[in-house]
């Protein structure tokens, strides 16, 4: 098993890894710093930035200038709405494939996965035209539907791999114990599956929150979530560093926190169980 490592070697690894990790993390750290500066201070050289005064004014300004919370709320509805809607459709499907596998189960799963491989740009035109015709363009509902559809394969796959880890014998035991299908799902399967479902929700909220193809192309202003809201800073206004930083921090903070909780699930979810 693990061998004792000399303290000096451990210190050296810690120093190297720490330095590299700091570099990776620095851009995020830096926008936090800039968001707490005045516009004038924010464009100074880094060493001058660090010694200048601190202020929260940019956060207030972002809300005043462009109604940050409207977009935040859009993001919440789109991310959680699409995930929960997806969950409702995916849970029965994943349950059935995991516990009543048939000859074609594998093919169905692979086919579902293949829909995820469809490049979004390949169907941009028809979706865009359909959205115009049905009046879904720039609506939260439209985005909920589209993001649900593009993430549905991932949700089904993740749930499937979690469900498959629940030993079939336990469900058989429940059946022997006299549980009906409903009771089996309610008292045995659901409590055992909740951790897996929670991870699935977490990862898919993250994916939907950060999705930046459909959210940019299918919204104008009304339904624009944070991805599109931030993109509006790409115009010369983006040179207001402090405000851009404040808006960015507010856009990524919630998901960063959720992301740290979901490291393990990330691997499973994004590799479709190919790496665990």
């Amino acid at each position, binding site marked *: 098993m693990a061998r004792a490592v000399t303290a000096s070697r451990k210190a050296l690894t810690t120093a190297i890894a720490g330095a590299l990790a700091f570099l990776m993390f620095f851009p995020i750290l830096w926008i936090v710093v800039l968001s707490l500066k005045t516009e004038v201070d924010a464009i100074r050289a880094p060493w001058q930035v660090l010694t200048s005064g601190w202020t929260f004014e940019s956060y207030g300004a972002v809300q005043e200038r462009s109604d940050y919370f409207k977009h935040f709320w859009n993001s919440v509805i789109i991310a959680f709405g699409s995930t929960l809607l997806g969950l409702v459709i995916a849970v029965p499907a994943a349950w059935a494939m995991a516990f009543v596998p048939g000859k074609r189960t594998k093919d169905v799963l692979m086919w579902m996965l293949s829909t995820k491989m469809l490049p979004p740009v390949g169907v941009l035109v028809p979706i865009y035209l359909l959205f115009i015709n049905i009046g879904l363009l720039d609506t939260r509902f439209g985005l909920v539907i589209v993001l649900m559809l593009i993430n549905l394969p991932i949700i089904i796959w993740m749930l499937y791999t979690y469900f498959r880890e629940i030993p079939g*014998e336990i469900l*058989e035991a429940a*059946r022997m*114990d006299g549980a*009906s299908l409903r009771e089996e799902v309610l*008292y*045995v399967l659901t*409590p*055992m599956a909740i951790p897996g479902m929670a991870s699935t929700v977490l990862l898919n909220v993250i994916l939907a929150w950060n999705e930046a193809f459909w959210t940019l192309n299918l919204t104008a202003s009304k339904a624009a979530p944070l991805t599109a809201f931030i993109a509006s800073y790409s115009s010369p206004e983006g040179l207001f560093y402090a405000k851009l930083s404040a808006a960015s921090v507010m856009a990524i903070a919630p998901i960063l926190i959720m992301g740290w909780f979901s490291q393990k699930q990330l691997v499973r979810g994004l590799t479709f169980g190919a790496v665990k």
Partner: protein
Amino acid sequence: MGRITLDKVRKSFGAIEVIPPLDLTIEDGEFVVFVGPSGCGKSTLLRLIAGLEDVSGGEIRIDGKDATDVPPAKRGLAMVFQSYALYPHMSVRKNIAFPLRMAGMDKAEQDRRVDDAARVLNLTDYLDRRPGQLSGGQRQRVAIGRAIVREPAAFLFDEPLSNLDAALRVGMRLEISELHERLKTTMIYVTHDQVEAMTMADKIVVLNAGRIEQVGSPLELYRQPRNLFVAGFIGSPKMNLITGPEAEKRGAHTIGIRPEHIKVSDDDTCIWRGTVGVSEHLGSDTFFHIHMPSRDEPLTVRAGGDVDLYHGDHICLTPDEAHMHRFDEKGNRIE
């Protein structure tokens, strides 16, 4: 009550027939062991009885009533799984009470039964724990507890001891036997371990490739194996099987002699001679693997613990003719 009858029961998965039509009767209160090598269909047979698999043909009757299409929960059987299949998110108490809760029994009666079962199985102190906090033996007892509270017509055990270490296995074996003595309920027990079969069973069913090779009490199988398969499977160490002139001399294609029915001597009045290969001195017994010029495989012989012979020693053997088993070319016993 728990009399289970299988009438021409058949099971195939797709084109593969794992159990050809099979008849078997299990009497009320009997402890029946299904034994056979892995893949012989013994677990499938148990699952057919449990109702966890649909039969492809034939009829299963429990206490005279046709149960072939009755769902598992309604058959009045309880099962103990190989992995124990405990509900990890429920306490031990809730695990044991689960079948009672499903049956809609009132809370007080549930508690009374769970407490009784826990007392019998020495689980009283663990009722509030989760299965994850228990040792293997304790989990096994919880699984048994969950089965006994229902007061089923019969218990089904699917290799319940195979996940336990050797010492615990012997202990649990005794506990299950004692439980059977106390409850007098029918038990069907699946194992690949012939020692478990011999020690626990009233009746052993030896299965091979989905077919019943022989049904009988442990000693019947030991004394009168009906064919070569049973002869080789029951008994430890294995019966020696000999073909060639020695067999022909006794009017058989193959003769079988168990290691314990060969006498070791150092005088010259013996029938077979050989050289000691590996010798295993257990203290109480000694197992010799004897090399003989006429055979490729060594002959296994069981002698007393005081026989001091070692690798390379010459040895003189006398088989006990009264305990010799004779088989024809098809492998069937010649009486």
